[in-house]
């Protein structure tokens, strides 16, 4: 039995990847389990310059999920290359650089830099709802996604994953734009814009007022978007949004994802990634599949 999957020229030893922004640069979780076990790690969203992020509180608990408004706090791409890649490279797991910017030039510049760095793929975050400029603005329209992807594609020497926002009317239109502009792979969903109010204080819980919803609550929306996107594009899909166990991960793969990312659930169960990998292996055995890749799109309709 083979758990490995091939996505956009990358070979992952299994289909489970740590989702960007929930896993830092891997150091913290490396104390909980062996990072060699992971299919891959998508690092915290990187920008050209360091960013401080938004004011706290940056997290609110909601029914079956959380809202976050970190706002891309990160040390900048140069510090990432200098300080973080060496550690990540101690492990045999794919390293995916998640990148964001305010302008198309930002995106191009950072991708140019990362193209020469020791990483396996670049994940274009055009979907962060927690920053005032750029990012989600690009991700909200097909034209915006096309423009960023197209500009980046020209300078990108690594497999290019475009990460989509669920805050759109028609995800397939956006996915097709990313594909047309040369994305090798599409990942989705980023967080859904939400808000939570503390009725005793009569104030928004988040200093930033709004934030991005993730965790189990969003899973049905995410599965639906993966399903729709898989029917709309030919490039492989990395599915995410609320995955907490193998059964959730398999839902995404049956819906059409070639791999999955897990984020929020790790806050509750720091072993969620390895537990999920093991659970997928068992499901494959018990359900007569030969390998993980066969799960992709194996929905009976």
């Amino acid at each position: 039995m083979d758990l490995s999957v091939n996505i956009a020229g990358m070979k992952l030893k299994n289909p489970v990847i740590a989702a960007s922004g929930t896993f830092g640069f891997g150091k913290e979780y490396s104390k909980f389990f062996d990072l060699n076990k992971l299919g891959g790690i998508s690092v915290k969203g990187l920008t050209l310059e360091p960013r401080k992020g938004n004011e706290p509180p940056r997290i609110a608990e909601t029914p079956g999920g959380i809202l976050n408004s970190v706002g891309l706090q990160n040390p900048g791409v140069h510090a990432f290359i200098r300080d973080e890649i060496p550690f990540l490279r101690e492990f045999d797991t794919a390293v995916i650089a998640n990148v964001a910017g305010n302008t198309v030039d930002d995106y191009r510049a950072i991708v140019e830099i990362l193209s020469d760095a020791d990483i396996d793929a670049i994940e274009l975050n055009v979907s962060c709802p927690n920053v005032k400029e750029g990012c989600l603005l690009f991700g909200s329209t097909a034209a915006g996604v096309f423009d960023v992807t197209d500009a980046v594609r020209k300078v990108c020497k690594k497999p290019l994953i475009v990460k989509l926002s669920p805050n759109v009317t028609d995800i397939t239109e956006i996915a097709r734009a990313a594909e047309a502009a040369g994305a090798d792979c599409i990942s989705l969903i980023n967080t859904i814009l939400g808000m939570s109010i503390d009725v005793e204080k009569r104030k928004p819980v988040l200093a930033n007022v709004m934030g991005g919803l993730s965790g189990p609550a969003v899973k049905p929306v995410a599965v639906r978007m993966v399903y729709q996107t898989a029917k709309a594009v030919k490039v492989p899909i990395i599915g995410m949004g609320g995955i907490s166990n193998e059964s959730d991960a398999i839902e995404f793969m049956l819906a059409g994802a070639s791999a999955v990312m897990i984020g929020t659930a790790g806050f509750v169960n720091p072993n969620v990634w390895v537990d999920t990998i093991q659970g997928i292996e068992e499901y494959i055995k018990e359900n007569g599949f030969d390998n993980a890749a066969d799960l992709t799109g194996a929905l009976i309709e």
Partner: protein
Amino acid sequence: MDFRERIVKTETLAKDIHLIRIRSEQITGKAVPGQFVNVRCSNGLDAYLRRPISICSVCPTDKTFDIVYMKRGKGTSLLCGFCEGDMIDVIGPLGSGFTMPSAGEKIAVVGGGIGIFPLLYLLESCNGVNKTAFLGFRSKDAVVMKDAFEYASNKLVVATDDGTFGVKGFVTKPFFDWLNVNRPDRVYTCGPLPMIKSVAEHCVKKKIFCEVSMEQRMGCGIGACLVCSCKVKEGPDFDYARVCKDGPVFPAEKLIFE
């Protein structure tokens, strides 16, 4: 890794204040004062995130540690349902602890409300030190662990907002009075923002070593997700530190209170 540990005791200390004693070789073997554990309050979606609770006391012989919490919202309400013998899912010890005083030093701890708990563990861990404890509570009904603090310190001053027990008013008052005639080597504080802010600023002004234990809403609790920010000085500028990993204990002079 399995984070489930056995509860060996639960006790109600005052209205809405409860203690849980947990046996854990793993946690008791590593914990230092000022650290916390991240507790799962349910097995499911209710109170989905873990709750950070300070380590309040450690018994190395029994390999147990105590947490004391106040029942407030969903998570802490669910915690009230745990009983002796139950398993509880706790990750820890987490965060950075207090800088321990050296033998012979003179220290003061200033705690308010649920902020007093990590200070007990600190006091219990530094013998040979001259320790004065200042504790503030809302009112007499809320006073908890007085005996333990008395036992662990050389002098205990309790204040209540309404004067129903000890000194009347905020605990900062007797502390500042004391500070006028005493110069401690170290001050440690934890509690409501106005209290820790005023203690911290006072100490910084007087150039007294002071450490503050901060609170913030958390996601991962281990430093990976960057949600638990707290504003700290960074040269002429500021930066956001992680309460869960860089803290919860910070040097007073690093903090920017708003």
